[in-house]
């Protein structure tokens, strides 16, 4: 479970997050939705300690993560797939995967085999440089690299960015499967609310740094005012 | 800076600045005027380096090489056509160094910072070896002597007097000539910076992706920046040749490139006044070091004393770059701000 309480983050004079509080329950997908600049990415970066909050707490189960270093949080089992996927282009697929396992007590060979089963295309490309992969393949690689560490929490930043609808659909489906089979706590940041709400259990809507709603996903999807004003989805 | 001034304002400012500087030469001793003349050469060179670094985001450790091109072209040209007016020789030297800049700038457009710095350093190492190998016409390690500008009679008549008058007058004349060239160079650069090209260069420095998106030709802009920078350094080298009275491989060792970077950073890179401070620092570095040695009580002849200048300025370079990258220009700006604040407080 990830619990965020009264979180405030500023970049100089600009307030990126104001008093944000919400919970992402264990074993479920919580979508964080909102327009561009709403503070979604900042939220994830703050959880991973890449950004330091002015005030507030972030709990992983009972543990307060504020004040810890990013690598220590990663070692606790929080995997963060950053915006733009964070795949290292100069590394081969294989090397990217090996790097994913490096800080964790897991069996590398087994982990890689497992990921190749999940994403067969990566096995074909394993000697290729990540820079030569397509966008969808890179997203798969990023997720596979995160999963190889057998995390308990997965933070996904805009996995659908720049992908074709079909590819987005496949990725989202895989995320849902992973969540269910591994009892993963997933925090899914998305601008593409429709795809996210399709697989999410809960949803939090951010608007200019403020959390304006935290409800089950189905309720958010059904709320016309939220959809129209904050998520840019026309009424169905 | 200076992007919001009009051409007329810039002309007035340049004339005013040049006039003030020339006025000062009347109060200086001969030797200080001679140093001032050399300082103008360094200031122009540092302006070139600063142009590249501050205004296009690249750094060169090879500007002593471009200085050498300017200096040698001047000396060689005057050897055969000694009656050429100085203005023409300076233009020729500038153009030659700019051509060198284009050649070096071609690979530079594709290179990231460290590659460029290393490549230019290698250039600065190799170039001074040329004159020794090219045969007697290039002067060898002896170098090529040339006539320093001599004060015309009317000037000596106006200024003259005292037993050392003739040399003192010549030095003052040299300083004035240097200041005039310097003023023109600074005026041109300030214009350039306010121009469309200048804006393009800043955009390339700040965001090369955005620059390409708005349709700028990235390689051409960078090569142009490199060529202008090299040309200015060549002009500096030409002025150096005139003021020094000789050019030789020993005048442009590769370590000079490192000194130039040092004085540019300490003066304040990317600013016009920083280049002026840098040029003055370059010629007065020894006096400054001696003064500090005396004040602190370092034996100037001890092993430490002899190496103190490099320790001092190298250390200052590190500290400046880490804590105050805007150098002396930034510091003066800061002090000015403080003074203004204090004054406005008093007014209230």
């Amino acid at each position, binding site marked *: 479970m990830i619990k965020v309480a009264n979180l405030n983050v500023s970049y100089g004079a600009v307030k990126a997050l104001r008093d944000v509080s919400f919970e992402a329950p264990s074993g479920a997908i919580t979508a964080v939705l909102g327009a561009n600049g709403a503070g979604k990415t900042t939220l994830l970066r703050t959880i991973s300690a*890449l950004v330091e909050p002015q005030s507030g707490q972030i709990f992983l189960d009972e543990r307060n993560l504020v004040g810890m270093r*990013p*690598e220590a949080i*990663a*070692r606790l089992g929080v*995997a963060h797939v*950053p915006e733009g*996927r*964070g795949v*290292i*282009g*100069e*590394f081969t697929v294989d*090397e990217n995967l090996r*790097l994913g396992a*490096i*800080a964790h007590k897991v069996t590398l060979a087994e982990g890689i085999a497992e990921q190749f089963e999940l994403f067969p295309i990566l096995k074909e490309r394993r000697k290729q*440089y*990540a*820079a*030569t992969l397509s966008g969808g393949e*890179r997203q798969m690689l990023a997720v596979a690299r995160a999963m190889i560490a057998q995390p308990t929490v997965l933070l996904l930043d805009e996995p659908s960015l720049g992908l074709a609808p079909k590819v987005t659909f496949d990725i989202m489906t895989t995320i849902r499967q992973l969540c269910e089979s591994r009892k993963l706590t997933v925090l899914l940041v998305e601008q593409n609310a429709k795809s996210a709400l399709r697989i999410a259990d809960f949803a939090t809507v951010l608007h200019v740094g403020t959390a304006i709603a935290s409800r089950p996903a189905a309720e958010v999807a059904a709320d016309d005012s939220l959809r129209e004003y904050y998520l840019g989805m026309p009424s169905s | 800076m200076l992007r919001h001034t009009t051409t007329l304002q810039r002309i007035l400012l340049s004339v005013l600045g040049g006039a003030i500087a020339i006025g000062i030469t009347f109060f200086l001793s001969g030797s200080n005027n001679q140093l001032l003349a050399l300082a103008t050469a360094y200031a122009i060179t540092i302006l070139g380096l600063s142009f590249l*670094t501050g205004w296009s*985001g690249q750094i060169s450790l090879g500007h002593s090489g471009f200085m050498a091109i300017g200096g040698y072209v001047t000396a060689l040209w005057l050897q055969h056509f000694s009656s050429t007016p100085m203005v023409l020789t300076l233009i020729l030297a500038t153009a030659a160094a700019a051509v060198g800049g284009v*050649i*070096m700038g071609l*690979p530079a457009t*594709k*290179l990231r*910072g*460290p*590659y460029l*710095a*290393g*490549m230019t*350093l*290698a*250039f600065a*190492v*190799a170039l001074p*070896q040329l004159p020794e*190998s090219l045969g007697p016409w290039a002067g060898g390690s002896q170098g090529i002597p040339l006539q320093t500008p001599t004060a015309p009679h009317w000037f000596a008549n106006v200024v003259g007097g005292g037993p050392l008058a003739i040399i003192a007058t010549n030095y003052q004349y040299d300083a004035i000539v240097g200041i005039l060239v310097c003023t023109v160079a600074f005026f041109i650069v300030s214009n350039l910076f306010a121009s469309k090209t200048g804006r393009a260069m800043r955009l390339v420095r700040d965001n090369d992706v955005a620059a390409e998106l708005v349709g700028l030709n990235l390689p051409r802009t960078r090569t142009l920046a490199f060529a202008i920078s090299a040309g200015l350094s060549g002009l500096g080298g030409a002025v150096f040749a005139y003021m020094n009275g000789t050019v030789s491989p020993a005048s442009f060792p590769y370590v000079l490139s*490192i000194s130039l*970077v*040092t004085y540019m*950073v300490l003066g304040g890179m990317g600013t016009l006044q920083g280049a002026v401070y840098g040029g003055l620092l370059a010629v007065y570095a020894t006096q400054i070091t001696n003064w500090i040695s005396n004040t602190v009580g370092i034996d100037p002849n001890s*092993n*430490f004393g*002899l*190496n*103190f200048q*490099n*320790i001092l*300025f*190298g250390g200052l*370079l*590190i500290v400046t*770059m*880490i804590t105050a*990258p805007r150098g002396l220009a930034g510091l003066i700006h800061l002090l000015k701000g403080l003074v203004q604040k204090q004054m406005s407080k008093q007014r209230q």
Partner: protein
Amino acid sequence: MNGFLTNRILSDVLYGITNGVTIGLVALCLVLIWRSTHILNFAQGPMAMFVTYIGLTQMDHGLGFWPAALICMVVGFLFSGLTERLIVRPLYNKAEINPIVVMVGFFTVLEAVATAIWTNIPRYPVAPFSSINFQAGGSPTALSPLAVFQIVLAVGAMALVTVLFNYTKLGLQLRASALAPEVAKLLGVRVNRLLTLGWSIAGVVGAVAAVVVAINPSGMSPSMMDGIFILGFVAAAIGGLESPLGALVAGVSMGILMQFINDYWNSNYADLVAVLILIVVLMVRPQGLFTKNTARRV
């Protein structure tokens, strides 16, 4: 057989290799620091020189060559790591030119301090290998025990560095820390520690290179690394700054080329040719000859 061993062309190749491995070793250090922090260390030569002075001057007090060389390597490890912590760390998120300028300043300071402490009178540390060439049938060959030692050392160092980077977990983390520090952090890599370690390892290789230079005939002096550093940079840039093998191959090729220029043409042009080759290589392949042509960062 004797004729073959003393053949002029073969001799030139062997001399070229001997001179080139030293260039290659310096290039190797540059590659090491580049791959582990993405900084080109312009003070690398003086840093290695300084460390070598600390170690090899212990021979004045009766210490043997090997323990003194070991001291060089240990001090190199510590000094280089400390430099990263104190001087380089504040520069990681600054413009690309900041670390270049700072390291240029460090270059100046280190050389001046070394001259202040040890003077610029050359010293001649005695290596446990003879520099007298082997004889074959009464005439000298182009190899000496010292040369063989230098070649073995350089190839060994290059192999170790290659294995380290390409086949070990440590190497993977070092490279990741340099290429994408933030991503590496998110994967649990202790990036700060690795950046320091990367410099420390380069410090050891640098110390080895400087010891090899110090036992050469021209001896040890505060400016002993200046020339070799520039050649080393040219080699590293031609090799591509990414590849240890490329660094050594480019270094040795340069050594051989310069030897042939010295022998068959005019030594006065050797440096110029090196720079011209560098310019041409960088124009045609800005990423160097041995770096695989990948797109830059994603």
